[in-house]
């Protein structure tokens, strides 16, 4: 029963973080801040949903497969974010800076 409740909390908060990230990808002004929203919520949402599913599955082969997906996404999702931002930096894409005192007025 407690495991059930924990699992549903994980699943629902994972879905919530996914939607928050998707809103962030539309609300933020430029590529780098969008990548911040995507990179953080993507990893967290994935972890929470997979953890919730693993709690539902109990001890079975499904848990092993979920753990494999978990480990793989845990390694590749930040790597992909880093590679993407690195490629954008190399190509000379500039961040949009606001009207802060030290910022570029653009």
């Amino acid at each position: 029963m407690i495991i059930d409740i924990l699992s549903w909390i994980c699943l629902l908060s994972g879905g919530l973080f996914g939607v928050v990230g998707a809103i962030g990808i539309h609300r933020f002004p430029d590529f780098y801040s969008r990548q911040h929203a995507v990179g953080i919520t993507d990893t967290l949402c994935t972890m929470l949903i997979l953890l919730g599913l693993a709690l539902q599955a109990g001890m079975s082969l499904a848990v092993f497969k979920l753990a494999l997906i978990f480990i793989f996404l845990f390694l590749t999702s930040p790597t992909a974010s880093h590679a993407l931002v690195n490629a954008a930096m190399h190509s000379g894409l500039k961040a949009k800076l606001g009207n802060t005192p030290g910022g570029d007025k653009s």
Partner: protein
Amino acid sequence: MYIAVLLAILVTLGLALARALIGPTVYDRIAAINMFGTKTVLLIAVFAFLSGRADLLDIALVYALINFISMIAVLKLVEYGDFHSPGKDSVGKPKVDSK
């Protein structure tokens, strides 16, 4: 309850696809497609539990692998224009082909 999570993931997929369509730079599009791929893995995993067929998790695993490889491949294509150039090191100097 699985349905609620499934719907949340579908909303996320729709918003990510919209960003991929309107994204001003090519990197916005790649970021949105990367997010789309990750969420598809989750969609398949949740659907496997919803329908009670645990073998669908294998497909989710393969999709996660393909998503990462295609992401890196598209990034290389965008940055260098082809798949076979040796690339640059971290300071931007071209690497010497050892062959």
